[in-house]
């Protein structure tokens, strides 16, 4: 008898697992995202909104949660940060939760993954009118897809070039800010290498290959993604722009190591140029010895900076299936972008670009502000969306771009590598 009961229980478990396996695909993505209701028609005491976010957002989320609970008595906000500060890990968790009907209402996402969410989960458009006083609306372009804003940039950064002023001065270059085009950059790198006998520049081909390649292409005035969604920079100018990596390798001035390792060499004073991001400035500032004379400069372009750079970092997207939850989620976003919240999310412990101008002004009132931090906090140029290729192919496209960057970094000519990459990515996209 006991055997029969055990066997029946085991069979039931196996059946449930098998059936759920068959049903998994249909509940994975898509779903109907609700348009936000008028918030005054919603009952906060009957509503719980669930957030999914990485730990770097915690201070601002906690602040906004308190404000929301005071504004809307009875509203419950389920806001426990994920353990990992990695956006891919966060995405895996949200996708898994959504597959089992535990879809969050408001999610943080890395800006590079925006197309994945818009193409697979139909998020609710963001109403710019709901943004708080001081919010720098020129950054909203980083959250746009096909002219509609889906994401509110929250903790953002952009590629920059960190420069060791002492090494440059020893090579006879006294004004790093005068390096505005790739020819000047290559010339400066060659001079430093001649002087030191060591590689003088690091542009990581492995970390963030899509973001960095996009930055090099766009700073040269070329399009990363063409109007029709296909590969955008297989043009003479585009090839020459991204060919920077190849030329640096041929000149034997490129270190070509991962970003963390390049950063370590930069901090140790061994590297004249290190391509990094504004969000990394705080870490470099903390680790650098006091006598390291360094500065961030705007990323040069082929003929000087000609285009807007892509934004990195993260932002908020509403994917709620309930109209009242969507409305409270929109209100929560507003509270996470105020001056107070922005000070918590982008303040002294970070070098994200504050998305709220009032927070920037407050930060600049502080004493003994390092000029490098000032550079990050005052960056106010328009930024573009990161990537832009169709979302379903994101992972494969990034891998293809990584291969392209690695080939260029070994000195392979751009005229050979870029057309092959364009062909490969366009075939993935069906273009």
């Amino acid at each position, binding site marked *: 008898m006991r055997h029969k009961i055990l066997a029946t229980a085991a069979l039931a478990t196996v059946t449930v697992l098998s059936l759920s396996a068959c049903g998994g695909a249909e509940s994975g993505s898509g779903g109907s995202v609700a348009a936000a209701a008028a918030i005054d028609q919603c009952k906060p005491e009957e509503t719980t909104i669930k957030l999914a976010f990485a*730990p770097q957002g915690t201070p601002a989320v906690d602040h906004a949660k308190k404000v929301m609970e005071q504004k809307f008595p009875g509203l419950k906000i389920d806001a426990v940060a994920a353990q990992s500060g990695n956006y891919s890990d966060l995405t895996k968790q949200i996708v898994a939760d959504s597959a089992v009907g*535990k879809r969050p209402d408001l999610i943080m996402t890395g800006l590079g993954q925006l197309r994945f969410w818009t193409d697979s989960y139909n998020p609710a458009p963001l109403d710019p009118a709901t943004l708080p006083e001081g919010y720098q609306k020129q950054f909203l372009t980083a959250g746009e897809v096909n002219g509609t804003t889906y994401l509110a940039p929250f903790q953002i950064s952009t590629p920059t070039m960190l420069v060791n002023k002492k090494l440059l001065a020893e090579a006879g270059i006294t004004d790093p800010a005068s390096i505005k085009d790739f020819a000047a950059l290559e010339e400066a790198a060659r001079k430093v290498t001649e002087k030191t006998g060591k590689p003088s520049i690091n542009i990581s081909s492995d970390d963030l290959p899509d973001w960095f390649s996009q930055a090099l292409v766009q700073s040269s005035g070329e399009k990363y993604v063409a109007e029709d969604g296909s590969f955008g920079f297989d043009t003479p100018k585009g090839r020459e722009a991204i060919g920077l990596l190849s030329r640096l390798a041929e000149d034997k001035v490129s270190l070509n190591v991962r*970003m963390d390792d390049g*950063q370590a060499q930069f901090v140790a004073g061994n590297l004249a140029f290190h391509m990094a991001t504004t969000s990394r400035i705080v870490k470099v500032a903390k680790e650098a010895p006091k006598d390291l004379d360094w500065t961030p400069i705007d990323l040069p372009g082929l003929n000087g900076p000609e285009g807007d750079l892509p934004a990195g970092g993260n932002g908020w997207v509403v994917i709620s299936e309930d109209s009242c939850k969507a409305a409270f989620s929109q209100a929560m976003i507003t509270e996470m972008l105020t001056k107070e919240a922005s000070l918590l999310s982008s303040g002294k412990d970070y070098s994200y670009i504050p998305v709220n101008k009032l927070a920037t002004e407050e930060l600049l009132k502080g004493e003994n502000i390092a000029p490098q931090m000032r550079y990050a906090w005052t960056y106010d140029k328009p930024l573009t969306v990161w990537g832009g290729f169709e979302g379903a192919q994101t992972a494969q496209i990034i891998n293809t771009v990584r291969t392209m960057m690695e080939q260029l970094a070994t000195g392979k000519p751009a005229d050979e590598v870029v057309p092959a990459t364009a062909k490969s990515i366009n075939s993935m996209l069906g273009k």
Partner: protein
Amino acid sequence: MTKLNKVHTALATTLGILAAALALFPFYWMVRTAVAPAEGLTTTGLSLIPVEFDFSNFTRAWDKANLGQAMLNGIAVTLGILVLQLLTCIPAAYALSKFRFRGAGLILGLVLACLLIPHQATMIPTFVGLNLLGLGDTRLGLVLPFVTSAIGIFMLRQQMMAVPEAIMEAAETDGLGPLRTLVSVVVPISAPSIAAFSMLSIFTHWNDYLWPLLVARSPAIMTPPLSLAIFQNADTGFDYPALAAAAAIVTAPVVILFLLAQRHFVRGMAGTEVAG
């Protein structure tokens, strides 16, 4: 010992030492990073021994990653999985190695086929099924998908195949039933393989990251690898000193366990010899 043999021995010893040094160097570097001051980590040069020592990275790592709780969770989950795997794999291997019954070949084929399916391929369906059973974000959810192991069944079956028929017949002559024979005769003889499989299981599940990432959301049930993720930030990079200290703490139990059990592990992995 001839002169040639001496040369061979010296060469083998040298290569062994070199291989061990190469294998151990990352572990050494982890410990070295953990005991060096966080400030100046990248500016003091690549000395094998830090200029200064600072053990505060360990307390910072312990507190920030809540390692005490994570280690307890890791022990509970890993041992839970191991016990269940031994309870399922040993009888299955015994049946497949010592009994002739219809479908045995097919079952063995299915077990081997399981080895070809990557864990990631079944992850989402398994996750959906677990949540239907209400086991998402629970310790049981971390354990249940691993109650049995295809590699365990296969490994133990190969060992049990080598148990001589004469011993089995002697057990039968002495009046031992199948279950008693398994417990009193086959399991003791298969101990090295059971120990080796146990070590493999412990290493795999103690270090598993992806499944706990999907299942464990509450801080109370985080496992050690997941708890280390707190030291990475996609935008600013890694907190290497704290990460190295946390990694040293987390790997210490399995390293000690391996040192204690390495003799059995090597014997179990080396072959299917039967003592006596």
